[in-house]
């Protein structure tokens, strides 16, 4: 997130959103969780600009 220029990154929620789905997920072995996250683009030009 920082490399893209964002600040204020925060994960606000996480939960198992795949259990009980009709088909078994092959990615479940990696411990996949649903999440909500937020971040902000800095208000002032140049602050936290996207890194190359």
């Amino acid at each position, binding site marked *: 997130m920082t490399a893209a220029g*964002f600040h204020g990154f925060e994960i606000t929620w996480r939960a198992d*959103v*795949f259990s009980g789905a009709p*088909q078994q997920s092959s*990615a479940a072995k990696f411990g996949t969780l*649903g*999440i909500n996250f*937020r971040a902000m*683009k*800095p208000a002032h030009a140049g602050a936290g600009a996207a890194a190359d």
Partner: protein
Amino acid sequence: MTIKPIAVPDVDLEGLRCEIRKEYAEVAINPSKGFHFHTGRPLARMLGYEDAWLEHVPDASIESFAGTGNPFALGLILPGERVVDVGCGGGIDSLIAGRMAGPTGRVVGVDMTPEMLAKARASAESPAAATTSSVEFRRGHAEELPVEDGWADVVISNGVVNLCPDKLQVLREMYRVLRPGGRLQIGDILVQKPVPDSAKRDIDLWKG
């Protein structure tokens, strides 16, 4: 502070996009088929979508919902705001955002799957969603959004960033289309265990 470069997985991008399009075309056309993820209204309820938000979203869009989080749990869209919905699918989040933004707001939903876009456009034009006339849908990729610089007050997305190998490029595009001070509200997937490089090249794992 030194920022560690983020490695982009060595996966066939066009092959991956093709397989993802096939999968989500199925979600659009045959949503009750049964997938490795939950779908539809039960999923929306599980993720905390309020009934009032769904009241003006046509069933066709709700049944093809396949998100992994809830962008609106991070904050509501304010009247008059401009929103980009990255990977809008059948349009549920775009239509909810359009309703929140009201007649002076605008929403652009972007997706790469034609079947999903057709569904989203049909829903936006239906009488049930008549007040969301400010919502439009464009075909495109998350890594190259068809939206001008600094246009959006808010970028939302739900269950899409995880499907893109070059996540930094996706985030840079989201940054580009946001105005200074704009906000990102994303539902997605977190992986708790390390994923080996061999698995990152496995297209079946990306879509399932």
